């Protein structure tokens, strides 16, 4: 184990540059998964014939697959259908598909947790189904969804490390490049990278707890 060599200025700056790439990837994927997750979740909650069932099946399949596998398929597999994504887009696509499925479950159960009486009351006061959903159910549901959604975002940030399987140039990949130059750098690099992920994710989880505390 060579800590001094592994933590050279060049290696550190190389790792931190790729951290920006990780954050960019995670940020984009989080935004997209939130959008699609909410849509899919609402579709499942709304009980629209056929559509809800189809969405349920797709979401259940995606949620039950290992993310690495989804990453491999979205990068290599789509080729067979003439869709060629570069590594970064394929990574974003795979993360979005998987995390949106997870978030849709959070949204669905969040909405389900609002009592049926609320919807009935809203409807009887003259609101349409859509209006009731938008003004009464969604705002309450969203509040309950915040903590699990933040956990999911942390999971997503951690999951970006799996895109190394297709060689996306994020933090984990940079770690591998550093220890490829000298295998005695391996353990020091793994430790440093673990600390970087920890600092970011732990800050996020503290932030989420603060938010929760404020709401109550």
């Amino acid at each position, binding site marked *: 184990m060579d800590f001094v060599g592994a933590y050279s200025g060049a290696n550190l700056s190389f790792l931190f540059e790729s951290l920006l790439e990780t954050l960019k990837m995670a940020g984009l994927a989080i935004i997209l998964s939130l959008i699609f997750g909410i849509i899919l979740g609402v579709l499942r909650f709304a009980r629209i014939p056929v559509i809800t069932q189809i969405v349920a099946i797709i979401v*259940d399949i995606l949620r039950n697959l*290992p993310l690495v*596998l989804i990453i491999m398929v979205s990068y290599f597999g789509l*080729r067979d259908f003439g869709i060629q994504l570069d590594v970064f887009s394929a990574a974003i696509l795979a993360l979005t598909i998987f995390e949106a499925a997870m978030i849709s479950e959070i949204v669905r159960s969040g909405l389900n947790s609002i009592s049926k009486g609320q919807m009935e009351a809203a409807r009887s006061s003259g609101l349409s189904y859509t209006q009731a959903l938008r003004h009464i159910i969604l705002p309450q549901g969203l509040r309950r969804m915040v903590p699990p959604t933040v956990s999911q975002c942390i999971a997503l940030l951690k999951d970006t490390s*799996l895109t190394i399987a297709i060689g996306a140039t994020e933090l984990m990949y940079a770690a591998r490049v550093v220890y490829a130059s000298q295998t005695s750098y391996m*353990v020091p690099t793994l*430790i440093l990278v673990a600390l970087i*992920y920890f600092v970011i994710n732990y800050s996020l*989880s503290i932030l989420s707890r603060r938010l929760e505390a404020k709401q109550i």
Partner: protein
Amino acid sequence: MDFARVWAYSDMIIEGLQVTMLASVIALLASLFFGTLVAVMRISPFKSLNWLGSAYVEFFRNIPLLLIILSVFFIFTPKGWIAGTIGLTIYTTAFIAEAIRAGIQSIPKGQMEAARSTGLTYGQAMILIILPQAIKVVIPPLGNQFLNLVKNSSLLAMVAGGDLMYQADLISSITFKTMDTYVFIAGFYLILTIPLSFLVKYLEKRFALSG
């Protein structure tokens, strides 16, 4: 899709399936044990144990599983599947500890006080009175953790763990049928995970009704 080409390597797939199932079950049992331990530490009246438990949970929940598995493998150098199973256990313990802590804390404080006043020690009261009740609340999230374990076991592939994903990597590099291989292997993961997810839903409903 040419699944016949992939199924020609059926013995590898079946071996991978066994490793995936074995690693998941061992990691589940081990993380249940350690998770309960850490959860009890977190709510124990001793400050230092408290802190230790929290530190464990916060640290391992917030770093990627891949890093844990690689570190276990390259620091302690066991066989790949053992490193993978230990890594899975370290990671899942943190999540299970959280679930169990929440379960224990959902039991009213009066229960512990009542148990203590009948002459039980803290440890006895925890094991005999509190934990059995907490299990009801904890079972649905535990089911989810097991589901995650099965999916996460795919990271064994990164340390030559011999699991399903590892076999998929090998088969796709032999056949060059990347899409066919991964889609076919996806089917095997679904065979394992879909029944589990129905079980989780069933448990959620059942315990929600009784609770």
